[in-house]
């Protein structure tokens, strides 16, 4: 079990992200029901059906929350009890396990509370709200606010406000999309749109106020913002938050036009809201990945200066030739172990045991190896973006461009982890214990999948409109997962300087995915513009990769 602690740590970040999504949708659903659908029941023609649909969506979100919470807490309990030799019941008394149990219990109780029988009257509104408050309070006890040395009460409140803001705005958008598709008349769209705009504003205000307070306590200074991994991840969240606000502003203008009885595109409202869901959920995963880095204010040493960032990102010619595998630090360490073992007539130990938590050695050749990988990946993506752009411009035979993704996936599978099969000593299956290897393989699988789907769609082997959505969805997932990607390097500064490159990559990936989504889903000029945007985002990814340096 000790060899699996790191991979479980990464899995717990993913599960934490899913938990935040499910929690926000559950709380958002409750708020949408209580403050939007039920007050307008007597004015909306299809209100009964809409109410049941929103309730069902909220119930499914609560079920998702139960599953994610049980899996997350279960994983954590299993790791603690096996590595510290404690009984299951002992670990279940830890604060995180108690909070998880309370959250699960609240989500369970919500299910009957949202049933048709319980939907009438004051108790039908008060009970779900009360359970939501208890669930939200318990959720704050698994945040860093509870473990801080000072100001715990203030930070717990602020954390609760932040999560409430995320729930009432982002968590309720799926309900808003359902309402827009269910309602058929302008009057209904007008009422729902206007009320949801106000709810969103409450959410934005809560996020901004709580975010400002937390930045004081967790970042503390401008250098903490750009000079630490925590600050950089917060920067990524802010960039996506601004994108959400821009989309929200677009929707606000539509609802204003509806309010003034002017012509407005409700289809644009729906499509923008779909993209808001995607970007919003990506923010939740960025929030979850913040759990793997210490607050900027605590990292007083090893901060990166602006000068170091400028030096690292100074333009240089891409590295297109690879160093020899035998020159890598891990190969040399393994050769030394093999030599010593041969002298003793024993089997040689592995230079690095995957999952042991001991970071592998690195030398200049390792850096050159990694830069070579990134630069060739950059060439692949740049060419893919260019071919997609030319295909969009009318060169039809270039529709096979997605096949380049398969070539790139093969290159990455072989080269990403030189210590692992087929190039290195570590076996294919044992290497799954290494977080970085597992993440690389996940990305390879993702690239193969979306490459194959897009090729099949473009060559009309797959004709379903839903099949076309696989590519944008998986590209967006890839971008979101890149935010959780980490390089196992002992030097904190080097790790951050790498993250400074990977974060824009992730953001460009998310933008590419959702722009392609809009191209497929949004008719008219908006969709056409989006069709030019996403290949450019791919080219941007290629340029950033070509710019990448590790020294």
């Amino acid at each position, binding site marked *: 079990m000790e060899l699996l602690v790191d991979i479980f740590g990464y899995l717990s970040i993913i599960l934490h992200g899913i938990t935040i999504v499910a929690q926000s949708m559950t709380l958002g659903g409750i708020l949408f029901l209580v403050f939007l659908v039920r007050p307008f029941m007597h004015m909306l023609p299809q209100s009964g059906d809409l109410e049941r649909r929103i309730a069902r969506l909220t119930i499914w979100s609560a079920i998702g929350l139960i599953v994610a919470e049980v899996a997350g807490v279960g994983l954590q309990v299993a790791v603690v009890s096996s590595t510290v030799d404690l009984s299951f019941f002992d670990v279940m008394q*830890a604060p995180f396990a108690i909070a998880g149990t309370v959250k699960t219990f609240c989500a369970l109780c919500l299910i009957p509370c949202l049933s048709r029988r319980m939907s009438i009257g004051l108790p039908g509104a008060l009970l779900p709200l009360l359970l939501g408050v208890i669930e939200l309070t318990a959720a704050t006890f698994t945040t860093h606010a509870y473990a801080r040395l000072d100001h715990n009460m203030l930070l717990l409140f602020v954390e609760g406000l932040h999560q409430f803001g995320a729930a009432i705005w982002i968590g309720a958008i799926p309900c808003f999309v359902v309402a827009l598709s269910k309602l058929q008349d302008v009057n209904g769209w007008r009422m729902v749109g206007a009320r949801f705009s106000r709810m969103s504003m409450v959410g934005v205000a809560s996020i901004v106020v709580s975010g400002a307070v937390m930045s004081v306590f967790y970042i503390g200074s401008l250098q903490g913002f750009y000079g630490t991994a925590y600050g950089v991840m917060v920067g990524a969240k802010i960039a996506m938050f601004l994108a959400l606000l821009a989309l929200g502003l677009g929707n606000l203008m539509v609802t204003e036009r509806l309010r003034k009885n002017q012509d407005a595109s409700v289809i644009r409202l729906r499509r923008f809201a779909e993209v808001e869901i995607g970007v919003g959920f990506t923010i939740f995963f960025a929030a979850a990945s913040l759990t793997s880095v210490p607050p900027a204010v605590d990292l007083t040493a090893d901060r990166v200066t602006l000068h170091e960032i400028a030096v690292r990102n100074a333009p240089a010619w891409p590295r297109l030739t690879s160093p020899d595998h035998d020159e890598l630090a891990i190969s040399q360490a393994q050769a030394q172990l093999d030599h010593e073992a041969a002298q003793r007539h024993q089997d040689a130990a592995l230079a690095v045991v995957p999952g042991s938590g001991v970071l592998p050695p690195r030398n200049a050749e390792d850096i050159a190896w990694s830069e070579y990988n990134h630069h060739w990946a950059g060439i692949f993506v740049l060419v893919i973006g260019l071919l997609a752009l030319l295909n969009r411009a009318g060169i039809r035979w270039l529709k096979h461009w997605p096949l380049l993704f398969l070539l790139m996936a093969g290159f990455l599978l072989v080269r990403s982890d030189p210590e692992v099969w087929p190039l290195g000593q570590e076996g294919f299956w044992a290497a799954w214990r290494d977080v970085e290897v597992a993440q690389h393989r996940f990305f390879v699988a993702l690239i193969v999948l979306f490459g194959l789907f897009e090729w099949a769609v473009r060559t009309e082997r797959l004709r379903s409109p839903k099949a076309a959505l696989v590519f944008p969805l998986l590209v967006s997932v890839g971008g979101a997962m890149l935010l959780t990607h980490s390089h196992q390097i002992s030097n904190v500064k080097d790790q951050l300087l790498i993250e400074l490159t990977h974060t824009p990559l992730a953001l460009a990936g998310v933008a590419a995915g959702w722009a392609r989504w809009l191209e497929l889903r949004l008719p008219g000029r908006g969709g056409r513009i989006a069709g030019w945007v996403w290949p450019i985002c791919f080219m941007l990814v290629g340029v950033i990769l070509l710019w990448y340096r590790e020294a």
Partner: protein
Amino acid sequence: MSLRHRFASTVVGVACALASVAASAHAILIDSTPKPNGTLSAGHVQMMFKYNSKIDQHRSRITLIGPDKREKVLAIATDSKSNELDTTADLTPGTYTLRWQALALDGHITRGDLPFTVVGK
């Protein structure tokens, strides 16, 4: 509220959001006795790990790896400061590693190795 006023509010919101964060992070070691790659005198020694967060001491662990690579789990004091793991051991000269695993009160596990050397008095 007019659209222009709402837009102005949004712009103010965007400006404030430049400081927006989510608050979750794990424990990091901010001080220790011994220091990483440091030296201790042989005998009955006190050892301390200090973190940036409150730690669940009962559910954390410190293992001493001796010069012969044998591992020994050390008892953690439960009456120390909320952000510390304190322990003691009888040490003879040699090269050691302290392998720690800390469970922060918010439920996040972190771990690390601290190599050090023990010299004769």
